[in-house]
């Protein structure tokens, strides 16, 4: 079969040129998709060589391209990452049957990439049938990662375990999965021993601990093990003794009452793990049990405590054991005092995420306030990533935070009451985000919240020149707000907006921008069908999709999803999703 891009053979006249094979060898050393894109634009030879040498392809929006086009462009792919639904599907803003089904991709891959080794999917629909197809049709398949996917059950996992003889990675995270029991784990053959990554932390039902222990003990290369809550501390202790080489551990339930002997055994087992850099899980951990992990913490760089509502004192006791901590996720039950402990004990901290333990409870005591985030910024000058859920904030606090840590790349602040002003001055939070964008020149991702006028967006448009992702909710005063962003943010790639007073003028102000972006989401704004039609007419290489809600006005465009594509309009859209044409 003749495939483009064509290959050139060497002729004597070309003695001064690089043979393709050499060029390919050199280019094979390039990993970053951005570098590879740049390389492919140099000239035809380089385009061709890059295409032949590419082994991994990242597709950020599965509808932006078709599998056939991908296969034509990159003939020798071994690893695919595919993302499907818009991010707001995580918040139930997208209907279940929206699409992003992986099966059509697998069918093409089976004929074009029979040697496919890795598949990483995010927010895609994956059925058991697809998983079985995958397991049966790709003899070299090694690594499967499913994040926030839905449509499959443990039956699909059983197919993968049964048929993928060389599996090294099975990473199942946070999916909408039908959990029919833990028998899938028993489907790994008795002589199977190649696993390096096993993550089933978010499956609900019990797996057989004996089966797991046997599997872990024969997979000597296992580096990442993340178990679910059904695994008791006794079982965990045995697993650790059997696999002290682990670099990443997701512990199971951590609330079991232990005898002193059990506690000592567990502590000893953690002490064997000299290479642990990531620790997560620890569901409902009690203070007593938490002390058992201290011996394993000396090299810890990422600690995820967001599955347990720790109090401030418990966190303050734990942190001194983690001197190398770079990333920390916690619940807001630790309170401002807990965050002060973070500031005091984590000088190398680069990322912190504080999630709400009880998002709907307004009586919540010990929740975090602006003091907490300021305390962290004072103690952690290397901080560059923050995700912070809180119930109150002030402009002054945010300004202080970014003054202390000017290198933020990701600043995501969620003040949980929509439209809430600065609680000390009652002013909008415009100046807070103004200070963020003015100070943090490297800012790539921004999420805003609180009471915000168009001024916030004026600041963003003027200063956030490196920003690629912006999330906006319940903010802005008029179309101008969105216009400022569309006109000013030259590197914008993803924009998601909900419940803002932006209408057609705002939508159309980005006309020339959308082709350089991955996607735009606007829901519960003031956009109408007419506005969408104009956009679709002016920009034929965008898909302009509208999801109508039941009972809404015919001319309102309730949810709008706009994205660039070379694959044309979707052919698999459900009835609730309209692709707007210019008609």
């Amino acid at each position, binding site marked *: 079969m003749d495939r483009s891009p064509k290959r050139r053979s060497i002729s004597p006249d070309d003695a001064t040129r690089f043979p393709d094979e050499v060029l390919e060898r050199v280019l094979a050393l390039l990993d970053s998709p951005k570098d590879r894109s740049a390389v492919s634009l140099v000239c035809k030879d380089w385009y061709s060589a890059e295409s032949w040498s590419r082994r991994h392809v990242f597709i950020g929006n599965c509808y932006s391209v078709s599998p056939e086009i991908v296969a034509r462009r990159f003939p020798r792919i071994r690893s695919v990452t595919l993302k499907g639904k818009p991010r*707001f599907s*995580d*918040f*139930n*803003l997208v209907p*279940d049957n929206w699409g992003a089904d992986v099966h059509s991709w697998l069918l093409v891959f089976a004929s074009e990439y029979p040697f496919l080794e890795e598949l990483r999917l995010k927010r895609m629909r994956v059925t058991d049938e697809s998983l079985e197809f995958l397991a049966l049709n790709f003899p070299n398949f090694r690594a499967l990662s499913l*994040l*926030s996917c839905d449509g499959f059950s443990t039956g699909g996992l059983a197919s993968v375990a049964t048929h993928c003889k060389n599996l090294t990675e099975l990473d199942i*995270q*946070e*999916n*909408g999965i039908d959990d029919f029991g833990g028998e899938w784990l028993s489907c790994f053959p008795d002589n199977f021993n190649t696993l390096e990554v096993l993550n089933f932390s*978010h499956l*609900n039902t019990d797996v057989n601990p004996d089966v797991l222990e046997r599997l872990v003990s024969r997979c000597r290369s296992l580096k990442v093990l993340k178990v679910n809550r*059904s695994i*008791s501390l*006794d079982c965990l202790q045995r697993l650790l003794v059997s696999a002290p080489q682990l670099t990443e551990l*997701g512990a199971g339930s951590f*609330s*079991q009452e232990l005898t002193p002997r059990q506690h000592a055994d567990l502590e000893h087992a953690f002490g064997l793990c000299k290479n642990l850099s990531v620790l*997560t899980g620890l569901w*409902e951990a009690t203070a007593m049990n938490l002390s058992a992990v201290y011996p394993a913490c000396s090299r810890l760089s990422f600690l995820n405590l*967001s*599955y347990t509502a720790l109090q401030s004192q418990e966190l303050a006791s734990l942190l001194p054991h983690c001197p190398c901590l770079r990333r920390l*996720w916690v*619940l807001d039950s630790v309170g401002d005092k807990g965050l002060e402990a973070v500031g005091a004990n984590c000088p190398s901290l680069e990322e912190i*995420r504080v*999630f*709400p*333990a*009880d*998002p*709907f*409870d*307004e*009586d919540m*005591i010990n929740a975090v306030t602006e003091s907490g985030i300021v305390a962290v910024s004072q103690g952690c000058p290397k901080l560059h990533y923050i995700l912070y*859920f809180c119930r109150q904030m002030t402009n002054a606090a945010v300004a202080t935070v970014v003054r202390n840590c000017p290198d933020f790349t990701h600043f*995501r602040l969620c003040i*949980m*009451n*929509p*439209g*809430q002003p600065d609680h000390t001055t009652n002013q*909008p939070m415009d100046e807070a985000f103004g200070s963020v964008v003015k100070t943090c020149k490297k800012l790539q991702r921004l999420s805003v919240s609180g*009471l*915000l006028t168009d001024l916030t967006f004026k600041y963003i448009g003027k200063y956030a020149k490196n920003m690629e992702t912006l*999330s906006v*909710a*319940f*903010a*802005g*005063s008029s179309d101008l707000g969105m216009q400022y962003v569309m006109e000013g943010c030259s590197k914008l790639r993803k924009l998601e907006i*909900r*419940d803002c*007073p932006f209408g057609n003028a705002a939508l159309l102000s980005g006309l020339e921008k959308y082709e350089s972006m991955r996607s735009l989401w606007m829901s*519960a704004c*003031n956009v109408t069908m007419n506005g969408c039609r104009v956009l679709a007419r002016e920009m034929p290489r965008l898909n302009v999709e509208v999801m109508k809600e039941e009972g*809404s*006005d015919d001319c309102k465009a309730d949810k709008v999803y706009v994205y660039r594509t070379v694959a044309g309009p979707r052919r698999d859209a459900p009835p609730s999703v309209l692709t707007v044409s210019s008609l």
Partner: protein
Amino acid sequence: MELQLGLALPTSNNKSNNRLNFGNDNNDVGSYTNDEVIVQSWLPVANNGGGTECSAVNSRKRRRFIESFEDDHIPINLKTLPLLQLAGGSDDNDDNCSVVLNKIETEDEEEGDDNDGEGIVGWPPISFRRKKKKKMWNHRDQLMMMMIVDGSSPSSEECGEGPTSMYVKVTMDGIGIGRKVDLAVHDSFPSLRRQLFAMFGLPEENPWDGGAGAGEYQLTYQDSEGDWLLADDISWRSFMGSVQRLRLMRSSSSSGSS
């Protein structure tokens, strides 16, 4: 019950309004029906003067305007709030967090029904998949508690090993700060009451004899379906199987509706 400002998310007490009629003592514009309370405008209202206002007064006026005139131009998000669905942290990184949700009330989870309880769809922006898991695990923990209370030992296949603590929130009328109590350490209502007294500083002999209307405070609880019920109406075991949170209610404010 707190004033339902236009800026604030309605509290879970909303659902219970019909049942126990907490009343709107602090509400200076009179009491709402459920419909009025939950319909709120979240959008800042753009004034011609260029500022923005987002206030309870606006939303109340707006609601009544709708009722009167059924104005088509009201912004689309001014609608009866669908039940809110809670979700977990979503972002582009590998290990997403699971939010530990405390006993969020849930309705039947029908397909396409995005919410339960009150609130806005998809807000706060935490992934919804956690809530389902948390709910399943809570039920399992409660099942185990029932078995322990019963005296039978749970099989490790069914319930995992070891007892779990069972913290639920307790609020008391008139006290702004809520507390948490571990129900797993109790085996009867008197035992629970003693701890609650101690927690909130109530003298033993004072407000409560458990009978309806007899003492100053009544113990009420929210069950797994979101309804608020009097704690003495059922057995301890059933109580343990369904309790989500507790509230010490002033009997004088109860009008006995149920």
